[in-house]
Structure formats: structure tokens, C-alpha cells
């Protein structure tokens, strides 16, 4: 490899830009999945670099669960407006209504699994043949197994036992009609790499990544914000404290962490010292079983 004199962030950036250009070169109708979180925000930044001076040559798709952090939505609209991209929003709520699905109930009603239906409907509606996502292999053990070009059949399902060989940087994006590929340009980035890159490139993020005061339910040692979707009952321990978010998913299944980190330097120092993994600290949905992510991917999740 030609990596000796390059800093690791340069290597990771170059790899991602190459992947973006391969997606553009190999597919007719790619789309970039964007949620307003840090990983997909980095994707936008990398795509801008990959295709400069032209604008990003594909639209941006948000699968809106209806359980978003309002700050992430504001950020999403601002960023998309600034880069002049075409934003497509498809709502899980509409899928639930059209398909007669059951909206999950309970204390923390996660629509995370239902997103796959909405995503597949959007893929069919627009004829997307490649969906570019911000998945990283260091997040979770099923993600750790996935190829950079991850082939999905007509139902969107991942076949973990039958993945295409993927050698060097030769990516095989050939598919039949109706199939699609999920492409992951930042597969090899860790959480810390993401933050160091954000710092180096001065990338703006939603405010909830930084310390702020919030009223939360203390649930199994995790801080879950009170919102229109998460309502405390009499037995709940309710605390108002200084928190920030390490990941930004749905309000119903993303926990905050107690933190006073107000700057990127603070956050990087905090992450370098933390004894807890990214998803372990922040995700309620992966605590269900050992294979929660694997199961979602088998059903078309990205």
C-alpha cells in the first residue's frame, strides 16, 4: 500500500472519495442516505470533495421515522439548502398507514425496524440502484462483517453467508434490475476518526452532540430524553442534567450521556478516556438480542 507518508485521516479520506467516485461511475441512480447525524454529515462533506467543482451528482434521502430530534431536522434542512442538494423525505408514518403496519407501542416505541420498509419503498419508487450509507464497521459486530459494496437482493436483504468477494479497491457494483447495492465509504472509520476528521475539516454538526441541559428518564442506567414520544410515568426517575449525544438516532431509542463536553477538543478527550463503546452507551435498540443488527440487515436495513 502507498500509505507510509500519509496521515491516517488522509488515507481514510482518500479511500472514501475513491468509493464515492466508484458509486457514481458504476450506478445509474445512486442516492445518499442522510439523517442529520455525524456519520452521514461526514458523507456529505466527502461527497462534496469527491465531485468538486460539480455539485453532488445524486439526491439525498432521509427516511423520516417521525421520532427525530428537532435539532437534527433543522440541521438537515440547513445543510441541504447550503449545498443545493435535492432532498427526498419519505416518512415511516406513511408506510405504516399505507401498509397497515402496527406502530410499535411501549415505553420506547422504536420505529427503527420499520425504516427498512420505507427505505425499500423509496428504492422502488425512484429506481435507486445504490444507497450510500454512513455505516462503520467498528460500530457493531454485524456491520464489522459487511463489504464496502454490499449486495442486496430485490427484497433488500443482506446475505451474510454469501457475500461477493471484494479484493483491493476493485468494487463489483453489477446488479440485475430491482437489486441494489449499499455502499459504505466510511466503513473503516472509527468513532474517534470521525471526530478527529470533523475537527480537522471544521464540519458543523447538530447542537445536540455538544453538552446541553435536558430532562431525561433514568432507564436502566441510561438517560432517555423526555419528548412527545417518550413520556414519563409515576415510577420513573426523572432528572435534569447536562448531557450530550454520542449518536443521533430516534428520540425513542437513543440515550444521552452525561457530559460537559462543549467543544470538539472536549469530545475527543472524552472519547479517548471513555470505558464504554459507542452503541453500548447510546442505543436501546441493540440491547434486545445478540443479533439485533444482523436481523435488521436481513430485512433490508442499511
Amino acid at each position: 500500500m502507498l500509505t507510509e507518508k500519509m496521515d491516517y485521516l488522509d488515507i481514510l479520506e482518500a479511500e472514501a472519495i475513491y468509493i464515492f467516485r466508484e458509486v457514481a461511475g458504476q450506478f445509474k441512480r445512486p442516492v445518499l442516505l442522510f439523517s442529520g447525524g455525524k456519520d452521514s454529515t461526514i458523507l456529505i462533506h466527502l461527497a462534496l470533495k469527491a465531485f468538486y467543482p460539480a455539485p453532488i451528482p445524486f439526491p439525498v434521502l432521509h427516511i423520516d421515522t417521525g421520532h427525530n430530534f428537532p435539532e437534527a431536522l433543522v440541521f438537515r434542512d440547513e445543510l441541504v439548502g447550503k449545498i443545493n442538494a435535492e432532498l427526498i423525505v419519505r416518512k415511516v408514518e406513511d408506510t405504516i398507514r399505507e401498509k397497515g403496519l402496527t406502530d410499535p407501542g411501549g415505553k420506547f416505541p422504536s420505529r427503527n425496524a420499520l425504516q427498512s420498509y420505507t427505505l425499500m419503498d423509496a428504492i422502488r419508487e425512484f429506481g435507486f440502484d445504490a444507497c450510500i450509507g454512513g455505516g462503520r464497521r467498528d460500530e457493531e459486530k454485524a456491520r464489522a462483517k459487511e463489504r464496502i459494496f454490499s449486495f442486496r437482493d430485490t427484497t433488500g436483504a443482506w446475505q451474510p453467508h454469501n457475500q461477493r468477494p471484494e479484493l483491493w479497491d476493485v468494487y463489483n457494483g453489477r446488479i440485475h434490475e430491482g437489486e441494489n447495492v449499499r455502499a459504505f465509504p466510511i466503513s473503516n472509520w472509527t468513532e474517534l476518526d470521525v471526530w478527529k476528521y470533523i475537527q480537522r475539516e471544521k464540519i458543523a454538526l447538530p447542537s445536540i452532540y455538544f453538552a446541553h441541559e435536558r430532562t431525561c428518564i433514568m432507564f436502566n442506567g441510561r438517560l432517555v430524553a423526555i419528548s412527545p414520544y417518550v413520556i414519563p410515568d409515576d415510577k420513573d426517575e426523572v432528572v435534569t442534567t447536562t448531557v450530550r449525544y454520542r449518536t443521533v438516532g430516534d428520540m425513542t431509542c437513543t440515550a444521552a450521556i452525561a457530559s460537559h463536553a462543549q467543544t470538539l477538543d472536549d469530545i475527543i478527550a472524552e472519547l479517548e478516556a471513555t470505558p464504554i463503546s459507542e452503541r453500548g452507551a447510546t442505543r436501546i435498540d441493540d440491547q434486545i438480542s445478540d443479533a439485533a443488527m444482523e436481523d435488521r440487515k436481513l430485512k433490508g436495513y442499511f
Partner: protein
Amino acid sequence: MDLLRFTTAGSVDDGKSTLIGRLLYDTGNIKTDILETLTMEGGLNLAHVTDGLRAERQQKITIDVAYKYFSTPHRKFIITDAPGHFEYTRNLVTGASNVDVMIILIDAKNGITAQTRRHSMVASFLQVGKLVVAINKMDLHDYAQQVYERIKDEYLQMADKLGLHNITFIPMSALHGDNVTTLSAKTPWYIGPALLELLESYKIPTQQYAHLRLSIQYAIEDGQQGYAGKILSGTLHAGDKVLIMPSGRETVISSISHNYDTVGEAHAPANVCVYTDGTSLSRGDILSHPQDKPLEGQAFETALCWMDAVTALDTGKTYLLRINTAEAGCMVTSVLHKINIDTLENYSDEAPLEANQFATVQLRTHKPIAWDHFITLAENARGILIDPDTNNTVAAFMIR
């Protein structure tokens, strides 16, 4: 800080997962919530750190490649945890294709096995830059030097046949951490290095090849027509006269953009966008300077690994060949010889080439391709074959 990618290969129960767990644990790279999931009845089981899929946990084997990340104050590392099983050799080939260092684990009790030969064959096929042979489970052999020396000698004989060089042997107990992150007092006869020391200090070879190769990926249209591509080797200057290979047409590079800047020159491995004097370029073109152009043609001899588990190689069929971004219809016109995994000798027979077999073959493409020999420029000497019916990647090849 730089980045080193390495892979681990070993048979079932050679201690591969334990070694990865040990490296992560001893360098403080396992978070406590993950550590809790590794603590079963009977204490901490480091091997579970690499289990990814449900079936892998149930069958207690690695089926496909998993990637793990860790860092020390000296370097960042990407571990490619690859399967050892015979039928998943193709996944090992995927995993090992991007690494700087390959670690082959040998159980001191079993010595060199068919799997060791197979893993070494993969290293030889891919021409991995640095090989580490970890002779593991030395704790079960009282850390005896003669056990280590015997396996080392036997391995060196095999390595010679495979053309493998630049090998470091390490006596090890991954379970107890001997010679993993630090040198062990139990092997005073071994002068080092410990595995981590080697991984931290190994000097990744830099690209020596000065000849320009720019692979065109994608046309960027923004008023002016630009072409996105990656410089595989060498240096491109604005104003350079270049050849567009394989067609051999000439053009002049009027300007080069890199990230958000217009630059006077760019070096490998930069992702650039170039502008010409008006000549149009296409995905698959290779740009070079006129005085040192790549080879060009439709027939070449390559080392090949067949990877499709469902169908064998069909010498009457047209596949799609990919080198970098170039694509062409291609037939395997003849299988010159196969390699016997037990004797490592060449042989020929009439049987079709099947999954996980290695051979030397003759390829013929339907149109000219620009290529280099592996020893001069690996990046332009390797590629894949795709089955146009299934779209699956069915083979990997290296032009020697």
C-alpha cells in the same frame, strides 16, 4: 500517525480469535461493555471478541471476514479477521488482499497442516509484503526451543517453494500473552520481536515506481468537462502531454484539481480531477507519459484463484474482466497448470478449476487492456472476473 492493515489466518482452534482478543485486550482497546459480553461462566473468553454473525457463534467458526480497529500511541491498526476453513479460503483472499502484514498461526502441536499450506498459498498469490508465522500454544510444549525450530525449518522449506520471503517467526502463547505485546520470560532463547513490536515498527514499503498511471473513474460535468480519477503511481504535472491507454491517443493535461484546490502537480495515490485540451476521456482509461506507457494487449498469462462456490471455471464462457476501472469481456483460453495444495507442485488435468483452487491461466480479452506486471506496479496488474449471468465476482487474478 500512520495506519497498518494486517490479517490473521489460522485453522480452527489454532488460537486466532484468542490472539486478536489478546492484542485488543492488552492494548486497552476493549471497552468495558464489550468486555462484559465476553465474560461467560468460567471467566473471560477473549476469543468471543471476533464472533460476528449468529451462525459463527453457533458453529464456533469464522465464515467471513470481520474488521476490528485498534490503536497504540505509535500506530493505528485495522485487523482483518479472516476465516481459516478450506471452503472459506475465498473469504481469506478477500481479507488478505488489502493488508500490509499477514500473520499465519500454527498450532505447535500440529505443526504445518494443509490449512497452513493453503494460507501460505494465499500469501504467495497476493504477494503480501510481510509474513509473520506465529507458532502458537507454546505453553503446551513447555516453551521448548526445539519445537519452535523444527516447525520454523519445515516452514522455510515450504516458503521456498512458494517464493515467500521476508518472514518473521514468533514463538507464542496467545492464551497467556507470551510474545504478543511484550517479550516473554518463558522464551529466553527468543530474542524478539514480540508481535506488537513488529506491527508497530514494520516499515510499510513506499511505491517505488515512478511512471505515471492515472486511472479514470468518472466524468465530472460542471460547465467544463473534468475527469475524476486516482493516480496509481508517479506524478502528474499540469501541462503534461499524456497518452490515453489502451487507445494510444494523445492529450495535454490543462489543469489538475485536488480536493478544493487547483494544483500544479499531484502524486500517487491522490484522487484528482483533471482537465484536458478538449480530448474526451472515459472510465477505464489509463493515462501515462508517452515515454513509459503501460503494456497493452488482449492476451496475458496470470495467476488465478477461482472463488465461485457454485460453478466451476468454464473455459468456453465469456466473463467480465476488471482491472482498476477498465472492463472487458474475457475468456480463460487455457488452464496452463494448477497447484497441488499438498505438494505445492504444479500439475495438469482435465477437471475444471473449482472454488478455492489456484492455477496459472491464459486470458484473452475482447478488446485491448492497459496493464503492468505485478513486480513493476501491483495496482495495475491485478483484477477480478465477474460472471455476467450472476454478476458474482468469481475469480481474482494477478499478472506476474
